[in-house]
């Protein structure tokens, strides 16, 4: 599978199988082994503070969770269920209203039971992030989802 085919496959799977990602309008930008990036467009209904028009934390949290999860999925040679175990988000600065937010995640270590990920969200300049995330995922065995977490 070449890069474009891989990206198209992940993108299709992402919006066909994950209703909430579709509802938020999250778009897969790129996927390669251990890496994933996505984009979330600003929309008035995603605003958390009506006085400033800044996005709520929730949509950014959902995209970072999804992006870390996709980075884990990209490490697997055969499909395996896994579930988010924990996710920490640091909201470094407000996202500029009206502009999309981009998430870039990396799965930097995959063991038999746990996958470790990091991610940043930015608005065009990765050196000037709006949020940073660290997520761990519990890996299930084939056909048997892990007993904890949100499932995937």
């Amino acid at each position: 599978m070449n890069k474009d085919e891989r990206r198209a496959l992940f993108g299709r799977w992402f919006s066909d199988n994950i209703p909430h990602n579709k509802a938020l309008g999250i778009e897969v930008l790129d996927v390669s082994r251990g890496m994933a990036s996505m984009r979330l467009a600003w929309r008035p209904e995603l605003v958390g503070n009506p006085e400033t028009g800044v996005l709520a934390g929730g949509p950014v949290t959902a995209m970072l969770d999804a992006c870390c999860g996709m980075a884990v999925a990209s490490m697997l040679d055969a499909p395996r269920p896994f579930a988010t175990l924990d996710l920490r988000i640091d909201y470094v600065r407000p996202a500029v209203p009206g502009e999309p937010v981009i998430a870039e995640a990396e799965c930097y270590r995959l063991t038999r039971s746990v996958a470790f990920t990091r991610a940043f969200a930015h608005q065009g300049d990765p050196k000037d992030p709006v949020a940073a995330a660290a997520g761990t995922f519990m890996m299930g065995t084939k056909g048997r989802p892990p007993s904890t977490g949100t499932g995937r």
Partner: protein
Amino acid sequence: MSALIQRLREARKTGNVAPLTDTIPYAAWMRIAPETGTGELLTRMRFAPELIGNTSLPALHGGTLGAMLEMAAIFHLLWETDTETVPKIVNITVDYLRSARPLDTLAAAKVTKQGRRMVNVDIEAWQDDRSKPVATANAHFLLKSADEPSAL
């Protein structure tokens, strides 16, 4: 005076918290709303098919749980403190304990420590059985300062 402060004052006076939801566009869109029916301030996220993150289990998207835990803390702070603006989230750590089924999710927040500017909040979310939480979180919020880093 902003619409938020007006609603907030009204809610505090009448004891009716539900209209607070309409002051935060993202909360209204997600159908995440505070309620006081039991005498305790709880936040409810009504189930909708767009909240699903895993269609085969099925299970709610981890991001929606993170988002509702964060909103539960915000509603709690709006209700329990004298803040007149939306508290600014600094960071949140979510532990995913169980797969969340396609049901309403409830959450309760507790202030662990309130300083002059910073407040530390524990939040717990459950579905049909409060003794079996689906997710817990700890988060920091800035209450007053206008020029500090945060998501909002």
